[in-house]
């Protein structure tokens, strides 16, 4: 079974600085998708960024970017110019590609604090 590991239960960053959240996963598949979700105190789950495993180029969405290392099975999230509104729980998730592979497997989450 696939597993997703977020080794940092909590992280903190100063406003305007950069922070990187770690995620590793275990899979024997070659084709899959990876996601980062943000959960602010409102509890809403918000998709931040998505990566397709067969694409070598790292995904970027404004201040959010990933460092996808397929061989190492690593998928870290970098937040640049951190803002107070970035404070949230962040979840890494994995999904196999194709067929009936519907299920997202989530990590346990990293709680990010942004200090003014």
């Amino acid at each position: 079974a696939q597993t997703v590991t977020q080794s940092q239960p909590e992280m903190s960053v100063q406003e305007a600085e950069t922070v990187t959240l770690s995620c590793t996963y275990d899979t024997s598949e070659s084709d899959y998708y990876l996601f980062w979700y943000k959960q602010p105190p409102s509890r809403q789950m918000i998709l931040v960024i998505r990566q397709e495993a067969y694409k070598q180029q790292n995904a970027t969405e404004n201040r959010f970017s990933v460092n996808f290392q397929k061989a190492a099975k690593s998928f870290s999230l970098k937040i640049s110019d951190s803002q107070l509104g970035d404070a949230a729980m962040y979840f890494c998730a994995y999904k196999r590609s194709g067929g009936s592979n519907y299920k997202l497997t989530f990590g346990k989450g990293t709680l990010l604090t942004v200090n003014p």
Partner: protein
Amino acid sequence: DAGITQSPRHKVTETGTPVTLRCHQTENHRYMYWYRQDPGHGLRLIHYSYGVKDTDKGEVSDGYSVSRSKTEDFLLTLESATSSQTSVYFCAISPGITANYGYTFGSGTRLTVV
């Protein structure tokens, strides 16, 4: 989020009572899911549905049942609530079987079993 609502948003119930949580979507998505979120566990899949009256179990299905009589509604029932079922419950939807763009989530239901 637009197109998916959960009710109630909060509920407190007593041990041994039945509880039903509702998920309603207006996106006409075929796939619907129930997850629970607990500290230190992330989100874990309880049940999912791949069409009207078509449902299957996830990894933590014991003590839960689901029903889907219409495309737009997916109900999660705790037959006899226990304290271990105190959690935040999320419903999610995806348009196709592959969910390659992830899920869209509801805003969650916080359930407390006392």
